[in-house]
């Protein structure tokens, strides 16, 4: 008897707990709890390079700013992100490369209105190397292109020595490490090489995945794959996102920019890179011809959204979230080693945010 009474009490207590739990779970959606009452479920997919940052932004925004909004971002890669965005399977896309004219035309005919490009942060592509006894290295653009073309095959080549006076460069063969998967990082790096070397532009060219001409070349999947290729192969040189170079402690080369300054890849130098760049109105731009104190191998990553066709609550939530990212998300970005937009570019990006859903 006692045990039965006890059991009933326990069940009742459990039920009441459950009810109060439901009660408290319901209350935050009321405007009083902090948010402005936005309620929507957003779905996005795309680039893996900014995925870490977007997850942080989403976490902070949906938990502390607008609890009524849920955002699901799937890091499936820029290619897939663009496909799903144009195919209307997602509310927003994310890509490390802006839409090509062909993609843009396909997007227009799919939705009946323009997509907008909203740059969120910059990333720098650093050139890491593994060379016994050498802990500082300076390279200019044409020499870098020569190495990746396979024209410069030994570390003591005069072209490398010219910008590294006083460094004892060994007579060691160069092993070139590149990404084996398609990647926005490769796109930024090869776009830069194309801009500084005629031979590169007419040969391998720029793209997310290209044909690597150097004979002693090795590939690694993603940034950590390239990092381990560099670490495992003496005499190797490869490109990887700045954050990975900092995390793995791989030594990186200073790159000579268009003003002749040798610049080490840092967050500040990346931010400076975008300062002197002419940016078109639709915000589809590459960062090339960097001078001043800017690091020359850098690129932006974009969010993609539509100018029409959202339900009001979805469109409002999307605008509010991206605005929050651009205006309040800088410190998180810097913590995670992404370089935030300059204030002038931020204003232009916010103008694009205003266009979201503006055609109804």
């Amino acid at each position, binding site marked *: 008897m006692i045990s039965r009474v006890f059991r009933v009490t326990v069940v009742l207590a459990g039920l009441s707990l459950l009810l109060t739990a439901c009660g408290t779970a319901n209350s935050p959606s009321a405007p009083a709890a902090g948010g402005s009452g936005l309620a929507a479920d957003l779905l996005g997919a795309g680039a893996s390079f900014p995925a870490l940052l977007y997850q942080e932004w989403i976490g902070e925004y949906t938990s502390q700013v607008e609890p009524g909004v849920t955002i699901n971002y799937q890091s499936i890669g820029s290619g897939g992100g663009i496909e799903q965005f144009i195919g209307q399977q997602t509310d927003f896309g994310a890509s490390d490369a802006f839409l090509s004219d062909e993609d843009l035309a396909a997007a227009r005919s799919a939705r009946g209105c323009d997509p907008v490009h909203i740059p969120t942060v910059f990333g720098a592509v650093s050139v890491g190397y593994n060379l016994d006894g050498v802990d500082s290295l300076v390279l200019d653009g044409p020499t870098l292109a020569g190495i990746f073309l396979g024209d410069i095959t030994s570390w003591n080549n005069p072209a490398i020595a010219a910008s590294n006076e006083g460094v004892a460069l060994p007579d060691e063969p160069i092993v070139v490490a590149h990404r084996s998967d398609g990647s926005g990082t490769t796109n930024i790096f090869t776009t830069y090489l194309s801009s500084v070397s005629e031979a590169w532009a007419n040969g391998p060219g720029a793209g997310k995945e290209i044909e690597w001409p150097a004979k002693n*070349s*090795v590939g690694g*999947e993603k940034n950590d794959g390239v990092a381990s290729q560099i670490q495992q192969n003496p005499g190797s040189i490869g490109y990887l996102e700045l954050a990975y170079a900092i995390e793995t402690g791989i030594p990186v080369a200073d790159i000579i920019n268009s003003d002749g300054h040798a610049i080490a890849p840092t967050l500040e130098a990346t931010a400076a890179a975008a300062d002197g760049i002419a940016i078109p109105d639709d915000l589809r731009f590459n960062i090339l011809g960097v001078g001043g104190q800017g690091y020359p191998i850098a690129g932006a990553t974009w969010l993609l959204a539509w100018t029409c066709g959202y339900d009001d609550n979805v469109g409002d939530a999307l605008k509010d979230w991206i605005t929050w990212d651009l205006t309040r998300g800088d410190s998180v970005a810097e913590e995670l080693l992404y370089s935030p937009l300059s204030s002038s570019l931020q204003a232009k990006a916010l103008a694009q945010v205003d266009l979201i859903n503006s055609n109804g």
Partner: protein
Amino acid sequence: MLMGNTMPALDRGQRPSGRHVTRNKKSSADRWFKWILGLAGAGVLIVLAAMLVSTAVDAWPVFKREGWQFVTSSIWDPGTSRTEITGSYGALAFIVGTLATSGIALAIAVPLAVGSALYLTHAAPRWLRKPLTYTIELLAAVPSVVYGLWGLLFFVPVFLRPVMDLVAGSLGRFVPFLAPPVVTYNYFAAGVVLSIMILPIITAISREVMSKTPQSEIAAAYGLGATRWEMMRFVVLPRARPGIIGATMLGLGRALGETIAVAMLIGGSKQIADSIFLGGQSMAGIIAVTFQEAAPENVKALIGVGVVLFIITLIVNVMARLIVRLTGGRLLGDASV
């Protein structure tokens, strides 16, 4: 008891009609059963054909544009178009990568597997046979991504790299495809780890086949004064040979299709290296690694690589069967299960 008493009588009394009825029922059930079995058998063929046809259709624009270049060129420079084919797609480097790693894997795994199967069946002390068998079969239960990681972080850089440097520095001076320079992840590294992965399946089947060697023949060999080695050489091995070849084919099938471990260790370069100590890429590897960022035309080309991989697997299997038939003996010989 009651049933026991009545049943025989009943049975006897109704035998003619009863038998007739049951046979009719039985044959209709048989027919249904036959149909269902037939469907199951045909299902495999239908799925296979559907796969081949639909992938070939998807990849057709690329095949049409590249023609034989698709398998004879090694320039793989993907384009980014959604509607046209603008890139260059030549998969030869990946075909070479797949065949090279599988060849290296077989060259290492088959002697090792046959040796350990012989040891397990005819040389090991009885108490050791079971645990050793289990241990080898346990190797098959390790996921391939774990093999890849182990190779990537420990086995290849720590253990294999010095060996490769040594071989390239000594033998490499005379044998072109062993020549330096050496990069850490390469055809050979992928092949060695692959050989460990296909070892259990080859060992398990070889062991099973060898254990079926008739005792009388073994006794006869000993009776004629054969040593233990001669007994294995002239009794066990010839009887087990078709089974060993069958096992090798199964291992080769796994090696050709293995994706992640090879992609992690083969070096990820898109060129045809002239030494087994340089990096390359396999067919399954290029699909797995580049699929995510591929533009629509690139996806078509990757599907095309899948079709070619399928055809190559088919050719290799048919060739193996032909070899077995020509050298006399069924794929799984009479000593097999």
